């Protein structure tokens, strides 16, 4: 499993076409037991890496989506207060110690993603998505968890990880991450795929996209990315567009310049970009596609 080639092959089998460096990163991640920090523009497939990794290991994917104001009770654990209250009401008059023991037992504990990730028997893939959206305090807390892999719950005691999860963090770079977190992680910068790889991604993901069409689409998208746009289309957009073209029965982009221009809305997501890529521009781009 540590072999990079094998990793690349198994990623490909699960529908993720990785470049050689990413395969190295994943093999290092397994060997050194460090989390992997993925950075890159929106839509280059950072989240997909974690999904593919889970399917490579045939294990569960546990996802924690970060947002501003995310705190421990949403990320780690929380007591089920309503249920505790009901139980207190129902056992009124019983031995108070017994009631207390009962309401602070596992049954009343709500497991959130981070706790779930360290309590599985089989190491899951833990995806901490868009860590840059969470607050600084949460980042510091996460750092502690990622180094010890144990959680202490005052009423219940310390819970140690039964298996160390494979941790993948992603960041869009909307905020500078702390050096401490960066240092703990392996770092991989995910760039837009080159034409060849993007074509292979299209072929792997979209049924009915032939090699020549996939290559044409990839070349066209590369051209669009070089235009001065507010929102550069990512791989997800490429796949949408490819699916649209295949769905409309396009076999060769040159046969249907009209359809090509009209479906560009799959790639261009703002009014400004849409008006910048006029019919002439799209024809010029199409002309460059062999």
């Amino acid at each position, binding site marked *: 499993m540590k072999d990079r080639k094998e990793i690349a092959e198994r990623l490909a089998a699960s529908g993720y076409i990785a470049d*050689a*460096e990413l395969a*190295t990163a994943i093999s290092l991640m397994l060997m050194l037991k460090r989390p992997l920090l993925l950075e890159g523009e929106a839509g280059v497939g950072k989240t997909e890496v974690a999904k593919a990794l889970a399917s490579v290991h045939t294990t569960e994917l546990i996802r924690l989506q970060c947002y501003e104001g995310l705190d421990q009770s949403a990320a780690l654990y929380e007591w089920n207060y309503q249920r505790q209250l009901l139980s207190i009401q129902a056992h009124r008059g019983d031995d108070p110690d017994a009631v207390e023991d009962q309401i602070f037992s596992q049954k009343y504990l709500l497991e959130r993603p981070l706790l779930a990730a360290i309590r599985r028997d089989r190491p899951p893939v833990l995806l901490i998505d868009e860590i840059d959206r969470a607050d600084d305090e949460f980042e510091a807390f996460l750092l502690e968890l990622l180094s010890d892999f144990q959680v202490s719950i005052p009423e219940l005691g310390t819970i140690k990880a039964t298996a160390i999860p494979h941790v993948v963090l992603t960041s869009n*770079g909307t905020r500078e991450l702390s050096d401490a977190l960066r*240092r703990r992680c392996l*770092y*991989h910068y995910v760039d837009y795929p080159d034409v060849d790889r993007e074509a292979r991604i299209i072929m792997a993901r979209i049924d009915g996209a032939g090699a020549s069409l996939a290559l044409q689409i990839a070349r066209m998208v590369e051209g669009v990315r070089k235009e001065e746009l507010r929102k550069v289309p990512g791989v997800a957009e490429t796949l949408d567009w490819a699916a649209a073209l295949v769905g409309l029965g396009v076999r060769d982009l040159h046969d249907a310049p009209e359809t090509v221009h009209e479906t560009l809305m799959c790639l261009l997501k703002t009014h400004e970009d849409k008006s910048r890529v006029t019919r002439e521009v799209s024809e010029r781009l199409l002309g460059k596609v062999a």
Partner: protein
Amino acid sequence: MSCCGTNPGYEELDEVSRLVSSRLAAFLKTLRDSGFAVGLAEGQDAAELMTAGYAAKPGLLRSAFKHLFSARKSDWEKFDGIFDAFWLGRRVRSRSMTTGSSKAANNPSLKTLADGQRSGSETAMDQVPSTDDAGADRVGEGRMEGASRADNLAEVDFRKLADPAQIGQAHEAAARLARAMRTRLSRRDLARRRGYRLDLRRTIHGNISHGGVPIDLVRRQRKTKPLRLVMLLDASGSMSMYTGVFLRFIHGVLDQFREAEAFLFHTRLAHVSDAMKEKDAARALDRLSILAQGAGGGTKIGESLQTFNRWHAARVIHSRTVVMIVSDGYETGDAALLGREMAALGRRCRRIVWLNPMMAWEGYAPEAAGIKAALPHVDLYAPANTLNSLAALEPYLAKL
């Protein structure tokens, strides 16, 4: 006999591993010098990788080390060059060495710009009426004179400061002012943090001891982000008389203050927050010396803003950000581009403040194509040629 045969083998192996580890240590040092944050744990992991067979193939080792040692995109991009230079003896492209090395030797460093105020101030000395006037007023007040030099200085245009001691004082005052602005702004922010909504979950949690009857209410406060200041300073030739003072000002704002970022531009843009966070101001300016390449040439404000919008804006700008551009607006590039980029910038941030030191010059009108294109997108257009005019900014920023 066989044991005698194997023993030297082990020793040789030891020798090899010692060589490798000393080489590795040297490499770690090189990385640290280039601005990588590399700790002991990384060193251990690197050693583990080398013994695990990665050392046999340079390409593979490079890729593995790159993941291990890089912590950000800039590291990621320059790593290959450093690795090749160290292990394979290839030349590093000059670009990849920018961070650590601060050889001021053959560049006209910004420090000299700041301290010397060479050519520019001489021409400015020809027309000094305002300095004289201010001085005359003070003389009238007699005994005030000695104590109030700073006040005196407050109204003097920066370009008319000639005597090094005066310049030093102006720098000090700018730094002091920046520090004062910083603390006052953040304190006001804290006092305003009121406003409440009921937090139902926490209320129930907090009242379990009352059997769930909500007696103590828990309220939720909206967490406001502190105001962030992003400064873009024009370091081109036409601004050289003012660059020094503003660099000190920026240094004062950045000093110990988390929510501020600084950029320098002339024909290209450079992120200087890290260099400016150096405690000692003179040393900070020294670290900037590499950026002085091109200072004194033309100004491409539009292109610099484009770089900023594309690569830095998402990271450094949030909803409570004021972008402060210090420039005379003499654009040598495309003015239409400047207009477009200003519009894009305006969409992202809360306010754009444009400080133009030339604005207070007699007979100055914003006629240059650059400033004309930019002005419609600017929220506050102010002169900043004296310490007082810098101080006048504070009430404006405090209101945001």
